[in-house]
């Protein structure tokens, strides 16, 4: 099919105005011809016979009169076997392959196949001739790394079909026809193992969407115990630059208890992205023993890549996440950072000369953020299996101020909030998630009342600390002072983790429960000290033992002996248990 054609009439930054002849649709992809290159663009406004296109590349060299071809398709990704382990840019260009073709630099107008057309996949049919199928029904499977990749009826085939033919078990590439479907009118539609889906449309091939209830373990104590995330849920991590958002994301991407992780680096620093790119293949997935990269897809847009490509990248990422969800898998999408995505929106809106909203963001900022996060969810598929997409987005608010529009719009739609604080990161507390500002609406791995009891010490400890700033340490009672020290103890031995330490960097749920129980016992114990100096130094010694304990291998000899030391230190000093805590401890 030959699409509509047009001619460039104006160039302003990365926006090109094109006079067209024929029909053009909103969000349609067009190509601006520049010599022998074609620059990918998206239609973002149509007025009369002029369409405005956001070019996904640098526009240098374009002149008035250059020709434009419209593709007839919306911006779409190709899905099929071979997505796992790939590193793409926001337009699904495979970056390592691009490097092989174009060298060190990102040359304009070079677009490669997102999926290899040479690889043969071992196909096993599931459906048979005569079966009635609908979109997203499984036709067969191929093994992809540790997963069984479902070859499904393309999601854009609405209606019911009868299978007219299907290939037997064997090796096929994604370009080979593996089945022929007959529609109600008797037309035959050949299907291959891959197809395209427009990124800005959620994949909706499921029967029912559930409330997220099952915890998604991240191995970060502060998150799993205190501010948990649920599978199929959403959470956000806002914080000023330098507060540790990226490190937290990296740790989560490695240890989260999930099948597939999709990382969307949206306007990210290349120096940090490269770390992920090079390290992931070297790391072993704790679950499968294979390379971590085999269950990962990276969508990588460094901050210097064109703004429109950055804007597209979160959609590319979430579409791939939804695709694997359709196979009954649990997928985690980590978007870093949604603020830069919002900034890209702002930049494009300014270029369109739209009336700016708050802080010059477009008026549709909130609804766009909301509909992005709404693409998360746990769903039941037509065959009864359950799949989920969890979305965790970092937010980089200007000046670390959570009142700004992107943070506020995000907070309205997420289920958990991990707010990072400048004070905590300045004091080198990792993770710098603020234990008093953060919240979660999800259920965690430890009973809520136990967590609440422990959290109370943090809260009261902080109150005492504030009070001490007014009345001084000498004006504080020893009872209050001990509460403050207990709060400080949870903070330093439980909330904080040593991200450089092999053992302490990621803590299993079993270990979390185990040490939480010990800590809870300490919090509930009553201690009497002759004076505050004595109290401080006793807690210092206890903290020291606990830190060593945190660094010792789970259930090793050292672990057991340090635990004994802690317990005897505590029982030697304890004068009994807090009455109110007995119920909680039981």
């Amino acid at each position, binding site marked *: 099919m030959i699409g509509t054609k047009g001619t460039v009439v*104006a*160039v*302003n*930054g990365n926006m090109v105005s094109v006079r067209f002849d024929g029909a053009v649709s909103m969000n349609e992809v067009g190509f601006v011809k520049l010599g022998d290159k074609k620059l990918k663009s998206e239609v973002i406004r149509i007025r009369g016979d002029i369409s405005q296109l956001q070019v996904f590349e640098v*526009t*240098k060299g*374009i*002149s*008035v*009169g250059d020709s434009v071809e419209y593709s007839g398709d919306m911006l779409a990704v190709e899905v099929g076997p071979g997505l796992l382990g790939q590193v793409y840019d926001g337009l699904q260009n495979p*970056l*390592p392959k*691009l*490097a092989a073709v*174009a060298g*060190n*630099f*990102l*040359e304009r107008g070079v677009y490669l196949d997102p999926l290899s057309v040479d690889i043969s996949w071992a196909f096993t049919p599931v459906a048979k001739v005569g079966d009635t199928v609908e979109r997203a029904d499984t036709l067969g499977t191929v093994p992809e790394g540790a997963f069984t990749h479902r070859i499904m009826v393309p999601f854009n085939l609405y209606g019911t079909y009868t299978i007219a033919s299907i290939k037997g078990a064997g090796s096929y590439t994604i370009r080979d026809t593996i089945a022929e479907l007959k529609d109600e009118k008797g037309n035959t539609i050949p299907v291959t193992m891959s197809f395209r889906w427009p990124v800005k449309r959620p994949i909706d091939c499921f029967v029912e969407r559930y409330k997220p209830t099952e915890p998604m373990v991240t191995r970060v104590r502060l998150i799993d115990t205190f501010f948990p995330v649920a599978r199929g849920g959403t959470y956000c991590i806002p914080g000023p*630059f*330098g507060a540790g958002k990226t490190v937290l994301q990296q740790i989560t991407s490695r240890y989260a208890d999930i099948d597939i992780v999709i990382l969307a680096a949206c*306007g990210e*620093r*290349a*120096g940090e*992205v*490269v770390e992920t790119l*090079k390290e992931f293949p070297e790391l072993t997935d704790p679950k499968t023993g294979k390379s971590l990269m085999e269950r990962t897809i990276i969508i*990588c847009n*460094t*901050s*210097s*890549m064109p703004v429109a490509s950055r804007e597209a990248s979160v959609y590319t990422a979430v579409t791939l996440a939804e695709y694997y969800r359709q196979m009954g898998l649990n997928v985690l999408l980590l978007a870093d950072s949604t*603020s*830069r995505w919002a900034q890209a929106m702002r*930049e494009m*809106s*300014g270029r369109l000369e*739209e009336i700016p909203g708050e*802080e*010059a963001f477009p008026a549709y900022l909130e609804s766009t953020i909301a509909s992005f996060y709404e693409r998360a969810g746990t769903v039941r598929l037509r065959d009864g299996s359950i799949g989920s997409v969890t979305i965790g987005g970092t937010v980089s608010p*200007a*000046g*670390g*101020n959570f009142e700004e529009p992107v943070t506020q719009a995000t907070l309205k739609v997420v289920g958990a909030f991990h707010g990072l604080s*400048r004070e905590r990161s300045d*004091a*080198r*507390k990792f993770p710098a998630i603020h234990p008093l500002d953060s919240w979660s609406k999800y259920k965690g791995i430890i009973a809520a009342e136990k967590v609440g009891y422990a959290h109370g010490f943090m809260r009261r400890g902080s109150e005492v600390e504030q009070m001490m*700033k007014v009345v*001084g*340490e*000498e004006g504080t009672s020893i009872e209050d002072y001990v509460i403050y020290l207990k709060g400080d103890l949870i903070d330093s031995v439980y909330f904080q983790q040593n991200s*450089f330490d092999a053992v302490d960097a990621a803590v299993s749920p079993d270990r979390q429960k185990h040490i939480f129980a010990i800590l809870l016992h300490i919090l509930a114990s009553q201690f009497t000290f002759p004076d505050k*100096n004595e109290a401080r130094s006793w807690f*210092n*010694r206890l903290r*020291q033992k606990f*830190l060593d304990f945190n*660094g010792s291998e789970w259930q090793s000899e050292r672990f057991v002996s340090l635990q004994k030391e802690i317990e005897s230190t505590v029982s030697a000093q304890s004068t009994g248990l807090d009455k109110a805590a007995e119920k909680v401890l039981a």
Partner: protein
Amino acid sequence: MNKVYSKIESITGSVITVKAEGIRYGDLAEVDTVFGTSLAEVNRLAGDLVSLQVFAGGRGISTGDTVRFLGRPMQVAFSENLMGRVFSGSGTPRDNGPALTDNPIPIGGPSVNPANRIIPRNMIRTGIPMIDLFNTLVVSQKLPIFSVSGEPYNDLLARIAMQAEVDVIILGGMGLKYDDYLFFKDTLEEGGALSRTVMFVHTASDPTVECLMIPDMSLAVAEQFALQGKDVLVLLTDMTNFADAMKEISIIQEQVPSNRGYPGDLYSQLASRYEKAVDFESAGSITILGVTTMPGDDVTHPVPDNTGYITEGQYYLKNGRIEPFGSLSRLKQQVNGKTRADHRALMDGMIKLYSAFRDTLEKKAMGFIMTAWDDKLLKYGDLFEKKMMDLTVNIPLEKALDLGWEILSDCFSPEETGLRTELINQFWPKKD
């Protein structure tokens, strides 16, 4: 086909408009005026109207002046002959040397494919403990120095330049005071570094548009040296002036302003420059140190704020010292695991205690009685500031680590430091 156009339709600030056809976005033109010839760059096309940014500014341009399109974008001549030379924002010599025209290369080229990058892995030693120990500078890093006007940021930049082990230094000066330009030139000359330095300097009195060219020219030249296998250090001062020049021009062009009048693409514009920092797999590297002055010491101002999200950390310069809070080298963990076993723990431990010292200082200022613990912290903070933070301290990393343990043991008992027992056993100074 260098067609000459002699009718200028409009002149607004430094932007002129002519009617012309077949002109490409980003092309260069020469504008002949009674004051001489200036370069101009196409920055908007609308039908047959071509808007150009005149490098020398709009002052004195007449509607009868001629515009000649060169049919190519901005370039800079690249060769070994650049060493020791100084150029302006339009590429003309500032020293009395000859103009260079051989081997022209385009500026503002595409960024490096992240898949072809290597993980930053080499530390750049500076001899400054606040950098080497606490926020190690890494080859290929992009770091701004956040600073208030009046702080010795150019001195710090020059000092790092002199002491850093690199092959080539490129200095990009934007809106530099003439005195500062001379300071850099003299300092590098005295230190014997001028012969490995190329300077692109826009001074405060030069036309605003030329300011915009400085980073791109500096980085294009840096990239060529890096591709030849050289380790290049690019110093950019001051990036806030660069952003302000962008603001000035975008407002003149009636673009819809974003935050505080800056153009909506401020982030992208800054990013495309900073992202030029790279360590090539099979060639050299580019490390970028920039100065970002913060109007009113306000880190939420759009320029430092956007910069912070692009760069791999920042050094905060305050009261003549690099502040431990707010200063950050994101890439430090790539290198400080290989330096010495105590590096990471000491780095965090000492800052935690320094943070407690600051709290105590606050308490003291409010007139509270100091406890024994407070007294220890006060002693610690004082020693830390004198022996570690002072920018005149110049010692190798290993000496700085030893000094750290010494300070700790002068003030605290081992378990008060929050450091692991095994490290204490190994490094705690033995005293009789």
